[in-house]
């Protein structure tokens, strides 16, 4: 007997299943279309508008005929070059020490080098002004020690302080990328060169350096990209004297009301950053494969002899001081007034100052920023996860979609903000555009945190679980979820900290009189005003922002799996 005839459910089941599959397909398609739509509306459309705006003959001819603009481009290029070279010079010895030696507190120190990297630019700018300013601890110490009449170090609005801040920011890239790769190089290879008659220098030149080339180039490109698009540091530390493409876009639009010139400059910026980004991705992939792999433990040893120990201690001590001093100065000066220790700057935060530029009490900005950050986690988390799943499941579209999802990482925040204001001017009165801007900036971070972990789960783990008797759903619960779950948590914290510190795009989008201002905007405005209370409040707010970012960073270091994920 054919049992199917007697069982309507069984007879219907293929149909039902087909229906379910259809619904699943629809849902899936929607899920996959969502991030593409998001990118189209809030990334490609604004950039397209910039392109259209820039296509006026007048703007181009104005740009090319003025030496002023060429000067800006030139300055942008060479300050980035100088910053990159300096960062490499300071980062390489540290990378070597981290790769080849073990010493007490190594993990903590390595984490410490990353702290500046996660600090918002307004915090770093405030911190360096706190450290090196006329009343800062360095100058005070020098004045007291040598009995000077006035502060000897005048770095505010100089190239030096810009370069120092850039090195401060990016030194961890060298330590992480180059040092990480270096640690996987077989030290025997260098030893072999030595036994064969190469001096220390020659062995480095002939063997180590060529092997380090992929991470060196990748790190250089990344540092170059970051310093090329540096906005907050140059605007807040360099002052009106220094102008890069990035700050000039801002000035042309906000101060000189020339959206067409700003658009041409943005176009230039986009071309440069996408070019650098493409190069970086290529070299980053190459440096992911170490040619001669060895477990990391065996390649590092303890320093031997007093000479080696002293040299390493001095280098690491200097690095620590360099990384900690500005942030320490920031915290200390936020609680120091004219009469010693005080909480006055913090106590004044809930009050609206007479004649204040922000029109809202500073504390409101703290609340705003926290809300934006939480919502950014939800929005960028949704689109980022959908994209990661899309990339993971649809391998055929991968080569097309992967770079597409990476592109927002290459676009500078200022360009994005500029694109938003010329595309969605009507939305500027609502907080929505700020949220969208933050979510778009956070989006690639979410994708890059989750995807490598998703890809990195060895199929063997799933197979082992299945052989041990786990059903497909149990396999997902037992293997995928716990591993990817942690990555999602990391992504959420990333999105949160990115939103908290976002400055470039927000400075375009948020109207000065709006009640939706964020913490970095208020800090920047306070920095621009004379008077100790404004500076003091900038210090207090920066300290709060620093604490939030540092907490986020610690959370990431805690939860993430070592070395999986790309940031």
């Amino acid at each position: 007997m054919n049992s199917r005839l007697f069982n309507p459910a069984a007879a219907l089941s293929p149909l039902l299943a087909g229906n379910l599959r259809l619904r699943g397909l629809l849902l899936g398609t929607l899920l996959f279309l969502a991030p593409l739509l998001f990118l189209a509306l809030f990334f490609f459309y604004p950039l397209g508008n910039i392109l259209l705006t820039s296509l006026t003959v007048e703007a181009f001819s104005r740009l090319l005929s003025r030496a002023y603009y060429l000067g800006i481009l030139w300055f942008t290029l060479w300050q980035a070059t100088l910053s990159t070279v300096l960062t490499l010079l300071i980062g390489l010895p540290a990378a070597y020490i981290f790769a080849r030696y073990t010493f007490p507190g190594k993990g903590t120190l390595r984490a410490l080098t990353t702290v500046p990297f996660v600090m918002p630019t307004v915090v770093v700018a405030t911190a360096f002004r706190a450290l090196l300013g006329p009343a800062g601890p360095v100058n005070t110490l020098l004045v007291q020690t040598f009995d000077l009449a006035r502060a000897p170090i005048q770095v505010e609005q100089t190239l030096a302080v810009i370069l120092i801040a850039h090195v401060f920011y990016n030194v961890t890239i060298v330590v992480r990328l180059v040092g990480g790769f270096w640690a996987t190089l077989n030290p025997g290879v260098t030893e072999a060169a030595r036994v064969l008659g190469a001096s220390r220098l020659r062995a480095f030149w002939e063997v180590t350096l060529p092997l380090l080339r992929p991470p060196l180039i990748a790190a250089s490109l990344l540092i170059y990209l970051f310093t090329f698009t540096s906005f907050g540091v140059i605007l807040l530390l360099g002052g009106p004297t220094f102008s890069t493409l990035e700050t000039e876009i801002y000035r042309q639009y906000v101060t000189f009301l020339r959206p067409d010139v700003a658009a041409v400059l943005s176009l230039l910026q986009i071309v440069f950053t996408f070019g650098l980004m493409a190069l970086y991705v290529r070299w980053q992939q190459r440096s992911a494969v170490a040619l001669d792999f060895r477990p990391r433990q065996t390649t590092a040893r303890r320093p031997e002899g007093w000479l080696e120990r002293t040299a390493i201690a001095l280098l690491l001590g200097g690095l620590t001081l360099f990384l900690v001093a500005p942030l320490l100065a920031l915290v200390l000066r936020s609680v120091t007034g004219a009469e010693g220790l005080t909480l006055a700057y913090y106590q004044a935060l809930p009050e609206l100052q007479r004649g204040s530029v922000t029109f809202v009490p500073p504390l409101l900005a703290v609340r705003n920023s926290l809300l934006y950050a939480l919502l950014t986690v939800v929005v960028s988390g949704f689109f980022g996860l959908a994209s990661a799943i899309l990339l993971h499941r649809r391998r055929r579209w991968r080569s097309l979609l992967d770079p597409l999802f990476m592109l927002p990482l290459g676009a500078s925040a200022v360009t994005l903000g500029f694109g938003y204001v010329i595309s969605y001017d009507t939305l500027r009165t609502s907080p929505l555009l700020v949220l969208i801007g933050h979510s778009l900036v956070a989006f690639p971070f979410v994708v890059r945190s989750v995807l490598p972990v998703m890809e990195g789960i060895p199929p063997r783990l799933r197979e082992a679980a299945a052989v041990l008797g786990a059903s497909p759903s149990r396999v997902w619960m037992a293997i995928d979820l716990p591993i990817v779950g942690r990555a999602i948590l990391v992504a959420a914290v990333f999105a949160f900290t990115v939103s908290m510190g976002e400055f470039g795009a927000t400075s375009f989008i948020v109207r000065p009189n709006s009640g939706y201002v964020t913490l970095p905007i208020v800090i920047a405005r306070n920095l621009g005003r004379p008077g100790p209370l404004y500076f003091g409040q900038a210090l207090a707010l920066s300290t709060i922002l620093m604490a939030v970012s540092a907490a986020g960073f610690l959370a990431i270091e805690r939860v993430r799996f070592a070395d999986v994920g790309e940031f």
Partner: protein
Amino acid sequence: MLELLEISKSFDDQPVLRDISLQIAEGEVVALLGPSGSGKTTLLRIVAGLERADSGALLLDGENLATVPVHRRGFGMVFQDYALFPHRTVAENVGFGLKMHDWEREALAGRVAEMLALVGMAGFGPRRVYDLSGGEQQRVALARALAPEPALLLLDEPLGALDRALRERLLLELRDILKEGGAPPRVGAQRMGGREGRPVTSLYVTHDQAEAFAIADRIVVMNEGRIIQDDPPSALYRHPRTPFVARFIGMHNLLEGRWAGEGAETVATALGELRVDRRSGDQKAGGPVVLLIRPEAGRLLGSDESAPNVVEGRLKTVSFRGRYQQVEVAARDVLLQLTFTAEEELPHPGEPVRLALEPSALAVLEG
């Protein structure tokens, strides 16, 4: 001649080498044999100049090497994982040492080709090293170390990363190259180096006793940073000095016993009084000793045959290994592990067996 005088070394206050003294004559192949952690690799790295000894001296033909940095010692080294330069071709790897010594380009190319031919890798010059198999990488590493004619060749477990069959084959080739200074791979092949017939002075680190036996003129057994025994392979095999050495070279039958009498070369053991050939040291009668019964000591006896050192027991297991048979015999409270030739007609497991233990296959060890 290389001389090591009372070399000591500690890592983090943990002694790794304690007063190591050793001499290696010109053309000699010396194996450093020991378990992992015995300090043999550290000793090799000190000789190379890659580590510094805490105390002691290292002399090459009477000259102290203390102040000579690695790259001026003129030694060659084959690393355990080969440490080939991954960014260089095979030829560039082999030629690296020559380049460091400023060889002319043509002479260098000639020597590289010659070295590649020597290790059976002629024509591999332009290849990338990471496309090579493990055995091929090993050959390139050897060619690279030999190319600058090192005064001393240091080998750190050079065959350790290879599978067994390949290891056996390469071991014999390596032995030929070291002892004959590299015989030409083909009869009549032209060689330019003029190194024929000059053996390569070598220090060979291994934890594999079979490798050490096959390749070395002398075996230096190390344990816990000390030299336990320093003898030619045959002497080491016949008379391991301590139970540790005996066990390390694969011996199992160690019996505690006592000298049975003054002058008489017999040892009282759980198997009864056994006669031995050589009396090591001059322990007093009644003094405790350890007696080694080498696996080939046993000889089957007929029920009425008489011989020295007769042992009666029961055959427990027989395991056929091709060239020989591995046998366990339970006699009194002792389980003896013995080998017999493949042709020997053995009783079935469980049956009684009567054996004679050859006095020449017994050795008295330091307790």
